[in-house]
């Protein structure tokens, strides 16, 4: 675990992004919550309404709240035009702001409600206007309690900001999500340590300000505020340097193969003299629109995914026809250039442990039909919502006794431990070979093909340098080479490689 100390210094830019995002969200939440609290103190109805709304927001899991802003902003493009960003900073800021509202609002409202009525009567008695009463009496007396609310909000927000990674906003969640997917625990711990450290630091600094306000110590109040301001300024400065030239942004979804291919693409572009930036651990649905809107420049996507999710097709015209149709559609519809196929498929398939398959006498999906009601099927979190599953289910009339969701890397563990009898595997997955799993045949051809595609955003679709650097990848990667690389990242023994090292191995093996 000594690796942690090597990883931490490299997280500087993620930390800066994390600080800027969290501080903006808390700042915006204060701008909304404090005037609202003043209004609420003058009206019972507003008070009750505001607090229930803020509480309602809290019941939505942070991850879902972040994800919900993507479709919301997408629909708002009808009003604000195509320039409205749907991923990255804006939706993350909005979701986290909503999340930070409750503690600030609740403490501010409570503080106002608990002010000494004698003091308020005196304020009126000496002739204060409503505004003077607010500024000279209510605000200074409520300040320590409001500060306590801001502290709570800060700790929550800094924690929840790690989830912003999933909607394409860089944060300390990047190493956490990347580490979880590649089972690189040092990376996960480094990300957790950094965000926990940041939360603790913020909590303590704000505590100093709170005590300063309560004891009316200007030294503590302004000292604490100065350090907070310095921290935010430093993060802003760190973010602004080096972002002058637009880098090429490479996306990866939340599984090992994507991390490896992103590194492979990145290393080739760097060798060709480009500055690159990795946006790791994005949600699958997010990546496609991010490339179309050029908020991300390069991604690896799969024909079957695009076919069912974006062309909304459920037929299966065959591998070549599917590829050509997608290529033409992406260019016409989104301005996205499908540079070509990498050479391997990462299709959905159903896999079982060899001994279990033999015991049940199952070799194909058709054999499974009669046994399924007594079996448990495991899938990745999106699998049971996907058209592929519906197609297979309806084509064979499969009815499993139970279905469970697992993170992709944990599905295989579930199969080994018997928590699942059948899993939705991926054909390029190294663990199929490593665990000697049986891939069930698909005699009815219900599962579409999943050729890996190299996608270029409209912004770089005509960049000859990029195309020249990436063209050698087309058709160069065999499914066996990809499996080996995936296994090297997923395994947990001494031969485990980082995605970067696995990408280098893969390049060598593929003659690049």
């Amino acid at each position, binding site marked *: 675990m000594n690796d942690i100390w090597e990883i931490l210094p490299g997280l500087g830019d993620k930390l800066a992004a994390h600080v800027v995002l969290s501080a903006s969200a808390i700042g915006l939440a204060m701008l909304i919550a404090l005037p609202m609290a003043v209004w609420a103190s003058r009206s019972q109805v507003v008070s009750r309404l505001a607090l229930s709304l803020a509480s309602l927001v809290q019941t939505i899991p942070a991850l879902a709240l972040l994800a919900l802003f993507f479709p919301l902003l997408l629909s708002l493009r009808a009003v604000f035009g195509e320039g409205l960003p749907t991923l990255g900073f804006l939706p993350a800021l909005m979701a986290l702001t909503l999340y930070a509202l409750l503690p600030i609002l609740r403490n501010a409202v409570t503080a106002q409600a608990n002010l000494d009525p004698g*003091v308020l009567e*005196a304020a009126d*008695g000496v002739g204060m206007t409503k505004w003077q009463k607010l500024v000279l009496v209510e605000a200074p007396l409520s300040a320590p309690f409001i500060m306590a609310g801001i502290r709570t909000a800060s700790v929550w927000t800094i924690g929840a900001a790690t989830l912003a990674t999933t909607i394409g906003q860089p944060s300390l969640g990047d190493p956490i999500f990347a580490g979880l997917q590649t089972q690189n625990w040092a990376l996960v711990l480094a990300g957790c340590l950094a965000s926990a450290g940041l939360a603790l630091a913020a909590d303590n600094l704000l505590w100093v300000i709170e005590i300063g306000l309560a004891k009316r110590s200007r030294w503590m109040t302004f000292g604490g505020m100065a350090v907070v301001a310095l921290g935010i300024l430093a993060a802003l400065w760190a973010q602004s340097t080096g972002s002058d030239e637009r880098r090429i942004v490479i996306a990866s979804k939340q599984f090992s193969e994507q991390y490896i291919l992103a590194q492979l693409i990145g290393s080739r572009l760097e060798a060709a003299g480009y500055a690159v930036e990795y946006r790791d651990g994005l949600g699958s649905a997010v990546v496609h629109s991010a490339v179309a809107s050029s908020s991300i420049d390069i991604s690896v996507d799969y024909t079957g995914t695009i076919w069912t999710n974006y062309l909304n097709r459920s037929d299966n015209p065959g591998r070549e026809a599917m590829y050509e149709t997608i290529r033409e559609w992406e260019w016409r519809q989104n301005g996205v250039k499908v540079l070509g196929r990498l050479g391997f498929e990462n299709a959905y398939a159903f896999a079982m442990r060899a001994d279990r398959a033999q015991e049940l006498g199952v070799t194909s999906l058709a054999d499974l039909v009669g046994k399924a009601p007594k079996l448990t099927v495991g899938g990745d979190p999106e699998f049971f919502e996907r058209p592929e599953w519906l197609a297979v289910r309806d084509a064979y009339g499969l009815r499993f006794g139970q279905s469970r969701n697992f993170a992709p890397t944990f599905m295989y563990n579930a199969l080994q431990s018997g928590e699942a009898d059948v899993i939705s595997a991926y054909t390029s997955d190294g663990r199929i070979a490593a665990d000697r799993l049986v891939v069930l045949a698909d005699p009815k051809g219900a599962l579409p093909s999943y050729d890996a595609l190299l996608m270029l955003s409209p912004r770089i679709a005509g960049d000859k340098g990029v195309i020249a650097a990436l063209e050698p990848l087309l058709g160069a990667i065999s499914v066996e080479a990809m499996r080996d690389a995936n296994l090297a990242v997923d395994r947990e023994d001494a031969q485990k490689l980082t995605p970067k090292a696995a990408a280098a191995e893969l390049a060598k093996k593929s003659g690049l």
Partner: protein
Amino acid sequence: MNAAPPLLRFDGVICRFGAVTAVDDVSCDIASGSFVALVGASGSGKSTLLKTVNTLVEPTEGRVLFGGEDVAHLKPARLRRRVGYVFQGIGLFPHMSVAENIAIGPRLTGEKLPPERIAELLALVELDPAFASRMPDELSGGQRQRVGVARALAGEPELLIMDEPFGALDPVTRDALGRKVRELHERLGLTTVMVTHDMAEALLLADRVLVMDKGLLSADETPRALLAGAGGAVAQGLVAVPRQQAERLAAMESSGERGA
């Protein structure tokens, strides 16, 4: 009728809160320079009537005239600077020093009180000038209300209105502060209206006693007249309490033993 116009006039004042009528058509004049006590049981409407003077309560009907002007037409900040207000809750601002508390009224109208004036106001209520830099939570209850009185006097008001000003103080402090306020009333030429439920306090400090009962003004007499039996049943009921206490104490003193 008196030649001098009254400083304060209640003209058919009615205050309703929902179904409750706290003040029910009160009219009376208060002459400049007088010390008036407004006495009554809890809920008789005396505090509500008092608060119509500095517009903390707005009458449902009727008018309150201060120096001939309807208080509803005066700017609250200006009005309240001319009307010093002392009340049972005291309400010193806990985040401000004694000096800042005293100077708050003038500060609101853009005037900064010099330290000498603060010291002078502290001296008026018999507090050491060193108190200026203290915070309210370092003071005793009596000291706090002295600061409260100093704050009410800081704007050089023409009228001092007090709502149970000594209600929360111990009897010794209460008596001392009562005498002090009466002395300041004389010295500064104030007009004073004091709400209290304690008839003894009213009789000893005021030169005119108004008795309120269920929102109505039931008596308007001098202390001497009240002691002589004027003012009706409610007023006499209130006067009877301190009188009997005094008689029992006197009897105890002359017989030299407890009980009779």
